[in-house]
């Protein structure tokens, strides 16, 4: 069955030594994620893009329609305004997990263990507002004015049982956060080169940002990948998050580049072991997603971890 079909370069686990995963360990960790956090599923994706070294029905993991209620940039502004300490993790020996405002060692090419990356600098622009124009697209360009094609009233009958937008205004609390909701499909693939999982983001726009009454029953349109960077911690938006082809899905998607995943995971594992916790490899993705949450702090995907990470030697 499954085991025979999986052939990878790594047969001995380097999970604790290097923070990396073998292919079969990725499948084991993915199975555990799906069982503990059922909003995640395995999928097989595009038949033409299937990897022979992964089981057909377990090519990658995905959780869809994940809300992102605020832009990461605005969260960081508030955090900086409060003069604050980091909210996400206290592992301050690593820039990716430590303060957002003052990264200490985020430059990927310092790391000797890993090949250098060519594609990291996607934009030299400092402000996220300029990114859409960098790619020559206006946010609203997708939707041409269709007013001349608006249907006569008789197409959609007045139906007393259909909730109209005006009712939504009345029923919804006056909460500005709703205005800014985007949703994401978050997927995790296996990167054979770096031997780690890799996270991909597909965003859907908050179409009605001008009129939130309409938004609530309005369209969910694909978000240009570049706009995804607004939901990425600004330390990473221009360095570690890149726009690339998804290995299993069509189109360009934003992705956290995996070049330092192994090193970061190794540090997390070391910290755990120094506390007497022996991490188990099937918990890898929970640790990994916790770390990814520092890169995309406002995308509320599920990585609930209310159980032991591993066996404690204490």
């Amino acid at each position, binding site marked *: 069955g499954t085991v025979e079909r999986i052939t990878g370069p790594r047969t001995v686990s380097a999970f604790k030594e290097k923070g990396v995963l073998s292919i079969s360990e990725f499948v084991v960790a993915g199975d555990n994620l799906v069982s503990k956090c059922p909003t995640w599923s395995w999928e097989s994706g595009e038949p033409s893009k299937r990897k022979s070294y992964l089981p057909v029905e377990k090519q990658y993991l995905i959780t869809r329609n994940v809300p992102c209620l605020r832009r990461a940039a605005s969260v960081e502004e508030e955090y900086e305004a409060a003069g604050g300490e980091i909210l996400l993790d206290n592992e301050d020996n690593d820039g990716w997990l430590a303060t957002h405002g003052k990264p200490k060692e985020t430059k990927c090419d310092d790391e000797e263990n890993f090949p250098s990356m060519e594609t990291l600098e996607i934009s030299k622009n400092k402000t996220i507002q300029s990114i859409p124009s960098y790619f020559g697209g206006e946010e609203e360009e997708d939707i041409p004015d269709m007013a001349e094609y608006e249907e006569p009233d008789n197409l959609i009958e007045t*139906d007393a049982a259909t909730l109209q937008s005006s009712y939504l205004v009345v029923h919804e609390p006056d909460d500005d956060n709703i205005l800014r909701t985007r949703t994401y499909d978050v997927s995790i693939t296996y990167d054979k080169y770096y031997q780690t999982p890799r996270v991909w983001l597909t965003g859907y726009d908050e179409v009605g940002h001008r009129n939130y009454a309409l938004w609530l029953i309005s369209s969910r349109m694909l978000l240009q990948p570049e706009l995804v960077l607004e939901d990425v911690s600004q330390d990473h938006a221009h360095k570690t998050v890149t726009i690339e082809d998804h290995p299993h899905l*069509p189109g360009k998607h934003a992705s956290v580049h995996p070049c330092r995943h192994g090193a970061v995971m190794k540090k997390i594992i070391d910290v755990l072991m120094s506390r007497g916790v022996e991490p188990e490899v099937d918990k890898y993705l929970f640790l990994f997603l916790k770390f990814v949450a520092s890169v995309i702090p406002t995308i509320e995907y599920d990585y609930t971890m209310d159980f032991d990470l591993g066996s404690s030697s204490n």
Partner: protein
Amino acid sequence: MAVNENRPVLQFAPFQSAVDEGFWQKLSSLKLDTLGIDQSPISITGFYAPCSHAQVSNHLTLLAESLPSDPSEQLSSPVLSRGNRNRCPVPGILYNTNTLESFHAIDKQSLLKAESKKIWEDIRSGKAEEDSALLSRFLLISFADLKKWSFHYWFAFPALVLDPPATLVDLRPASQWFSVEEAESLSAACNEWRNSSSTADVPFFLVSIASNSRATIRHLRDWEVCQGDGQKVRPKSLFAFFEKFILFLFGLYDPCHLPNNPGWPLRNFLALICSRWNIEKVRFLCYRENRGFADLGLSLVGEALISVPQGRAAENGVCLGWRDPQFVPNAVGWELNRGKKVSRCITLAQSMDPTRLATTAA
């Protein structure tokens, strides 16, 4: 039974569509490689799941897998793509036109009528009780402009209209409806239903809670089984069936997150309940989740009154009722675009146009 004027009309939050880029890419290649100028309708599969977050509704999603590999084969024997708990398959039909003009010229009313008639027939024949996803059948019209890599499209989620509309007696979070024991048992039963691969993608079901607070979830088809079995033994089976249980609810996966409105799929379920089972007071459970587990705080329990449409003067003056085999209820369901009756358009030139791809890659 006359509609109480003081009771509010039960209002349903419209279904929302979401189309993955993969769907348009696959449609493009189907059009180029297989379909050509053939405009025959294509069977497609949409996916949805119960709402899983307090702030966002779930959508009817189209993915690359929503399209058949060989459309001609699939139309004759539609096979739904395999689902899982996060993507319950729903049958749909796609009318893709060759020009923008023919897209706008489509007779949307007739198409909606045709699809709602299928739903009605599946209710009447009992097919919808065997395969409850048939209740949420949907319709998509599109024009794929392969020169500009843009896609004009419009969804319809046909809903049979109850006339007069159902009125609301009570609607509350499910957690306020049940005792602690009942809620625990119901959550456990729902989670079990959602975790079993044979039931995870079955979006409509029957819930009964016995006097010992124990909740049981059954398939819709078991309604007939319960009734039929009982009738052989004792004549007052239906009465006995209800007596046996303190609570009986019609459950559905609710994609909607709003605290005061059930989602769209309840509409055709109510039509089934009142036309097949002659129930006028319907207690329903809008099942919703948080982080993939039953959340009775988000889920709703409601009680609605349906006045079974006995007769209705048709245009020609003949009185038709829901019992009349010729009768087909009216339907609504074309999706609005920002509140307007317009189609949608998405341009994927950035990811599909080879010249643009070459520029961004440079």
